[in-house]
């Protein structure tokens, strides 16, 4: 048999193993190697719910999927071309994601009786899973790693910890990845604290690479050409990191210190963690006693003139409901980030979902309008956070920014922007002109009020949760209340002036319009591409701005016979659109499994309709 090198457009690879097997790192290194090589990519880490579920069990499997393409890649991929399974449990948990043509690389040494039993196999695992027909490569990875390092002087546990490098080496051979990036990584990772680990890891990596080159089982290798369109300096970024950085950017652009008051909660915690690393950039973070304190501290910080944010996930958003109403009533700038996870209640904390939209829109007592935005990809989280802060500060309103576990933990290469390309942020700060400050007098155009933080001389005033007049005096006068209710709503509605029009991907009129918001962006885009490749004509829009909706929303909708709203919930956005533009008929494509869409889900839904 002769080795062939086949050029492919894209591949999906899933690394899976025990929580301790280092699969997140392996996947990340493979992804970064590809990124540096110039490929487009999208990744999806799939953690277990437990910190360390029992070794070798299905519950303890940790996975990392990466989709590498020579052209723009939009999702981590539905099914995989190659699965690396470091133990039987990893195979079991992931077999259903194999393409018909997939390659499966397993660590033979882990497939002993004990291992098979822990994963719940009674016989031949490949037969039980009905994947005997796949291209299965069985390699004694543990043993080979031991051999490779027998002279290294390392103890056995340390040697075993290197076996992921063997796997990575094999994967790099199979996909013709250069190893330089990984060498660099090993250097910088170990240089300071464990220089003795550099060489062994390097060696195992190379040995894995060479082993793959030598065995018969691997018939062909693949190349994925670099994407030649994109030029510039890149970095990887997760959604959570991007949100943190977006706020820091808004802080710089507005000239205001950043204050974040939050309580840890999966999958939002990393935003607080990231922010707390950057005190050097005028950032103060407070891990508060609970979510309510988080938002209330932020509101206090806002009253004192900081750019104030609070970050959380579903259950925390619920707890913040009452205080969000306080921000609505006091008309102070505030951004609340909700990195959605599967609910209801505690639900499935490590799983993704879009089921908090209704709560973001409606989850407060009384008439409590506020701005709702969403992020559509890990890198877009940066812009979304920046914009959320800008709107909050310029329109004096709380803003809820919806992200998702899928975005927060997911990462993508990001072409580093220059801050000079970002717009100025102009907080509505005022100083005394000698007259009495009326806190709720409004800008005639935007209806935003002015902001006189505590400490501004001559501007002493009181704010609070009770209804007030423009002058800031308590009032239960019926007409005043009605006026204030309407003004607060109208103020939010007028944010529309700052919102870009929807861009239609595809023709402006036609049979079907695909509609999405948030993290389903890539999947819907890929579905549209797939459908077009199948010869269908579809158009597509994606909403980053949910409340208010872009100006041209109605016009866009009116161009289509069918509107299909795709979302990871029971139809929140579709329901919201019905309340706003009841004249259109909205079809729905929903999934509530704590999982992202498969491109297939959307394609099938469209094909069912057309």
């Amino acid at each position, binding site marked *: 048999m002769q080795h062939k090198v086949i050029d492919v457009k894209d591949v999906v690879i899933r690394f899976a193993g025990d929580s301790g097997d280092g699969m997140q790192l392996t996947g990340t290194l493979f992804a970064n190697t590809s990124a540096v090589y110039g490929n487009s990519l999208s990744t999806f880490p799939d953690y277990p719910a437990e910190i360390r579920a029992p070794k070798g069990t299905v519950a303890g499997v940790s996975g990392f999927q990466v989709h590498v393409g020579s052209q723009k890649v939009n999702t981590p991929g539905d099914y995989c071309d190659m699965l690396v399974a470091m133990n039987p449990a990893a195979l079991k948990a992931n077999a259903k994601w194999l393409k018909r043509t997939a390659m499966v690389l397993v660590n033979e040494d882990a497939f002993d009786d004990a291992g098979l039993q822990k994963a719940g196999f009674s016989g031949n695992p490949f037969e039980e899973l009905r994947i005997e027909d796949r291209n299965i490569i069985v390699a004694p990875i543990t043993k080979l790693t031991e051999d490779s390092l027998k002279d290294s002087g390392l103890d056995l546990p340390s040697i075993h910890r290197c076996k992921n490098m063997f796997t990575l080496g094999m994967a790099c051979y199979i996909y013709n990845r250069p190893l330089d990036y990984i060498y660099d990584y090993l250097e910088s990772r170990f240089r300071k604290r464990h220089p003795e680990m550099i060489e062994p890891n390097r060696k195992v990596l190379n040995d894995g690479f060479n082993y793959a080159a030598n065995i018969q089982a691997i018939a062909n290798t693949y190349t994925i050409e670099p994407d030649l369109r994109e030029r510039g300096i890149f970095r990887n970024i997760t959604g959570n990191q991007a949100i943190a950085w977006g706020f820091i950017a808004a802080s710089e652009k507005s000239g205001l210190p950043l204050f974040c008051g939050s309580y840890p909660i999966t999958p939002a915690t990393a935003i607080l963690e990231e922010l707390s690393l*950057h005190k050097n950039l005028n950032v103060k973070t407070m891990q508060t*006693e609970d979510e309510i304190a988080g938002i*209330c501290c932020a509101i206090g910080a806002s009253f004192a003139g900081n750019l104030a944010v609070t970050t959380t996930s579903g259950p925390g958003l619920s707890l913040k409901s009452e205080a969000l109403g306080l921000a609505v009533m006091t008309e102070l700038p505030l951004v609340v980030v909700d990195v959605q996870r599967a609910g209801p209640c505690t639900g499935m904390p490590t799983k993704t979902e879009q089921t908090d939209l209704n709560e973001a829109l409606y989850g407060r007592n009384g008439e409590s309008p506020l701005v709702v935005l969403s992020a559509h990809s890990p890198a877009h989280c940066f812009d979304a956070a920046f914009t959320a802060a800008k709107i909050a500060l310029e329109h004096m309103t709380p803003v809820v920014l919806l992200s998702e576990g899928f975005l927060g933990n997911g990462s993508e290469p990001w072409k580093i922007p220059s801050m000079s390309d970002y717009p100025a942020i102009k907080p509505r700060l005022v100083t005394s002109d000698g007259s009495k400050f009326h806190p709720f007098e409004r800008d005639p155009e935007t209806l935003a009020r002015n902001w006189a933080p505590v*400490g501004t001389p001559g501007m*002493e005033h*009181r704010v609070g949760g009770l209804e007030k007049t423009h002058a800031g005096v308590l009032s239960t006068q019926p007409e005043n209340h009605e006026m204030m209710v309407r003004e607060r709503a109208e103020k939010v509605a007028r944010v529309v002036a700052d919102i870009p029009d929807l861009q239609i991907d595809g023709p402006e009129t036609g049979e079907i319009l695909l509609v999405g918001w948030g993290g389903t962006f890539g999947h819907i885009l890929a579905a549209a591409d797939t459908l077009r490749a199948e010869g269908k004509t579809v158009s597509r829009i994606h909403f980053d701005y949910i409340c208010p909706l872009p100006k041209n929303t109605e016009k866009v909708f009116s161009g289509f016979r069918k509107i299909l709203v795709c979302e990871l919930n029971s139809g929140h956005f579709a329901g919201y659109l019905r309340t706003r533009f009841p004249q259109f008929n909205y079809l729905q494509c929903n999934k509530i499994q704590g999982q992202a869409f498969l491109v297939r889900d959307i394609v099938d839904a469209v094909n069912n309709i057309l």
Partner: protein
Amino acid sequence: MATKYTVKDFKSDQEVRWCPGCGDYSVLTALQRTLPKVCEEQGIDKEKVVVVSGIGCSSRLPYYMNTYGFHSIHGRAMAVATGIKVANPELSVWQVSGDGDALAIGGNHFIHAIRRNIDINLLLFNNRIYGMTKGQYSPTSKFGAVTVTSPYGTVENPFNPGTLVLGSKGTFFARSVDTELAVSEEIMLAASRHRGMAVMEFLTNCVIFNHGTHWEISGREVKADRTLVLRDGEKMIFGKDRNKGIALDGWKLKVVTIGENGVTEDDILTHDSHADNLGLQMMLADMKYPDFPVALGVIRDVSEATYEDGVRTQVEEVKAKARVHTVDELLHSGSTWELK
């Protein structure tokens, strides 16, 4: 460069809307009298003063102060005040809360702010009742209290705010009564000097729903015998005839009478709010009528690092060491690559 202020500078143009005879008036007066002194002594400009409250009759106080004010939501004043102080440590932050606001719904923020030792002065208006909602029992209502929600009497122990503060690692606790304006001003001044969280409990009278609840100790006739104003360096002597005092009895306290059973002034304890005597101060805070006089004045006032200082210092240290100073630098920090 704080100007000299007068009481009038701190009065707003809003009509005070408490019931005639409500104990809250006198605490407001004490605050308006104390702030000019505080500002002068500590060089604070009026616009740096902010009064934060929750919800309740007492929490209406910010409207009556011509300062920055935040009338927030029920129970959350402590958190709002914390955010203000951390955002701008220059500010002089005063919080006003009722016993319900601070200790029922707001209990968690209360104990955490105390633990963090953030420099906020909390005026806790303890009328042992929910005034604003018309007379339900509160976490400080006496065992057995008959109220609209406890028509047959409560069956739960009240908090003693003092022991709760001390149990939460509080660095400052003081107590006064609405009728003791001078003591009120005294403890407010001490609180303003204290760096860190200062809890002041004011025993106030709700004329409508809990009239006279504190009179058994604060009534004009009895107060000399049933309260003890603690002052540093002074003996813990009280009573109409100034002949009663607090002495140590093993690891407990007892009331003794000078001249009886050979007791002399030397046996009487001398107060030291600045000493870190958690056990003793706990017992002093816990003194209850009829076994003991109720302690007024500053019970504990010890010095510890404040939270906002810690935050500020850390930010400065990190800044001093940092190599990244702009967002552009941040974006390019760490691992990046170029595609040409």
